């Protein structure tokens, strides 16, 4: 960025970034204190800083429950949003996202096959797996996600109409779900229950050990994405323009495919399918920063994705009550009207990526 660029819009953007950072800290703090048990922030800080003198039960709640849950939520929000952003640009479609296009179902299929096929399952899907199994799980989910995304890419690249792509994703989703159901059908009853619990989506239940797998995997996929903003920007003008600008479109598409499937696959493996974060966050980022430039959008969706996921988890906890809502219920309740809004707004304005 040159000096002329660091004028007013640059300043406003810096301010927005700082405000978003503060908002993230705020929702994290809120999420740590609230829940079925209310713990004062000062006590939480003592636990995090390793100082003594805090109730044992609180230490346990914070260390083994709330902290890993928040880490998971942040990773999930970041990964799903980053995945959605890449997919929206690659499919040139404002509605593209891992959940809507059925890519999550592909991940589910991968998980189901890995567990039942390899006979790894012992009761529940996730907690029972060893660390090696976790990696296998991530690989299987990413492969499943990549398979569905590759298929949609193959069929849907000639489709310019977002609604058609949506139906395509829906059909792929149904087909893969049917296969999963088939696997479930031949499985023991407790697995069926485990699957339905898993399919609600949850940020809790992911252990520190599993985070050791999830975190580097997500980081790696984000690292790939960090190399792509230039190509993604070129792709905004359409594939033909991008080619005549010297872009290797098929290489970019492969990298996006890998990054987006690993991001959504890994999260789906550990947290279950989580809807609408991937489609909504890129739009919030574009509206907030008034730009389509991926150099700005990537850090923006990372921040906003984290905020949205932690906030969604906060709502799911229903502070003050003993109930915990499935995370997917929360994201769908807020996300579905959001997608409707995008569809209706798009009808009024022909430009798909405009604010």
């Amino acid at each position, binding site marked *: *960025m*040159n000096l*002329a660029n660091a004028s007013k*819009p640059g300043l406003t953007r810096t301010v927005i970034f700082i405000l978003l950072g503060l908002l993230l800290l705020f929702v994290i703090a809120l999420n740590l204190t609230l829940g079925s048990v209310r713990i004062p922030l000062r006590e939480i800080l003592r636990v995090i800083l390793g100082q003594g003198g805090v109730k044992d039960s609180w230490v346990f709640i914070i260390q083994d429950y709330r902290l890993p849950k928040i880490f998971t939520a942040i990773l999930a929000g970041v990964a799903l949003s980053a995945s959605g952003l890449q997919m929206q640009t690659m499919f*040139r479609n404002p509605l593209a996202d891992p959940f809507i296009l059925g890519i999550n179902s592909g991940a589910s299929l991968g998980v189901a096959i890995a567990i039942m096929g390899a006979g790894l399952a012992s009761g529940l899907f996730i907690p029972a797996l060893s660390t090696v199994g976790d990696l296998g799980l991530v690989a299987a989910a990413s492969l499943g996600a990549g398979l569905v995304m590759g298929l949609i890419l193959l069929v849907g690249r000639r489709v310019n109409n977002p609604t058609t792509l949506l139906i395509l994703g829906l059909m792929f989703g149904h087909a893969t779900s049917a296969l999963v159901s088939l696997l479930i059908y031949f499985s023991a009853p407790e697995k069926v229950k485990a699957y339905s619990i898993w399919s609600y989506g949850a940020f809790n239940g992911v252990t520190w050990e599993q985070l050791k797998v999830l975190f580097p995997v997500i980081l790696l996929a984000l690292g790939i994405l960090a*190399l792509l*903003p*230039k190509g993604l*920007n*070129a792709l*905004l*003008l*359409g594939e*033909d*323009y991008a*080619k*005549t*600008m*010297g*872009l*290797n479109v098929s290489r970019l598409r492969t990298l996006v495919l890998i990054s987006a499937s690993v991001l959504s696959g890994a999260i789906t493996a550990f947290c279950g399918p989580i809807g609408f974060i991937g489609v909504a966050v890129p739009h919030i980022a*574009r509206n907030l920063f*008034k*730009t*389509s*430039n991926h*150099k700005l959008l990537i850090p923006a969706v990372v921040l906003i994705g984290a905020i949205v996921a932690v906030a969604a988890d906060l709502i799911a906890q229903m502070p003050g009550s003993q109930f915990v809502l499935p995370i997917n219920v929360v994201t769908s309740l807020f996300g579905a009207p959001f997608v409707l809004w995008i569809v209706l707004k798009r009808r009024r*304005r*022909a*430009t*798909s*990526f*405009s*604010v």
Partner: protein
Amino acid sequence: MKTPLLSTRDLEIGYINGKPARKVVGSELNLELKQGEFVCLVGPNGAGKSTLLRTLTGLQPALDGEILLVGKKLAQFSRKELANEISVVLTSPIEVGAMTVKELVAMGRFPFTGLFDRMTEKDWDVVRQSLEMVGMQGFEERMIHKLSDGERQKVMIARALAQEPRILVLDEPTAYLDLPGRVVVLGLLHDLAFGHDKAVLTSTHDLDLALRHADRIWLMDDEGQIIQGAPEDLVLNGSFAQTFNRSGVSFNAQSGTFDTQTPTSKIVFLEGEGSEFIWTRRALRRIGYTVKEEWSHGSPRVSVIPRDDTIIWQVARDGQTDTFVSIYDLLQSLSK
């Protein structure tokens, strides 16, 4: 004599994976494009103009023959090398909204910036110059979805220029523009070739503008054959009339425009001068009269007469004279 930047030898264009397996759109094309030359590719709809342009810019492979770019086969260029020689403006409007003019034009620097797309001061200079060349300086911070169609097309041309190509290829850049917009864009393209020494190749449906501005016309017919030459040559040797010959339409080699043929048997004698005379003649032809300037017995006689500050039209026929104050009233009377 300049050597051509781009030339083709027995080029065959078309599609390989269609039905039937190989659909040839045009063949035996021997074309050339020189530096500083403005070439307009014209022809009826569906002749294969877009296919030719896509083939020449490396967006789709040639079926046979070869394309030479600065003396080297086009197929041997990598995408990146090609981007340094040729840049394009495509027909379909881009769908991106939340982007400033400056950001869009800066995309033209894509082949020159590194992996992380860092723009140097020199890159920004090129962006500024490109905007100046299309007369869009001062629009840097405007959002592209808020520009008019004509302004957006000029920005797209600026983006292509920022790529600093030797050859600029445009596929119907005037398709979505109003008439003044078309005049401006084609005039601009002529200036880019003439004043900035670019080779500019564009397809267009605006024949009269192409005839006026192009150094050379590539005239493509329904069979995908191309005749090239100066616009005047093609008019005089009847190529234009032949290519665009359809029932009911004929190319008028005198005016360089297309006339619709209304069956005429009625004759009218017209006298007068100046632009009033020319426009009255046009109007009479439109309603099916053959206009003569030598009076013959039995035909109505129309006179365009200046009176004080205005014009009046007099019609003498069957021994009776009527006076009209507008061409519209004149036509109403004559078409009865």
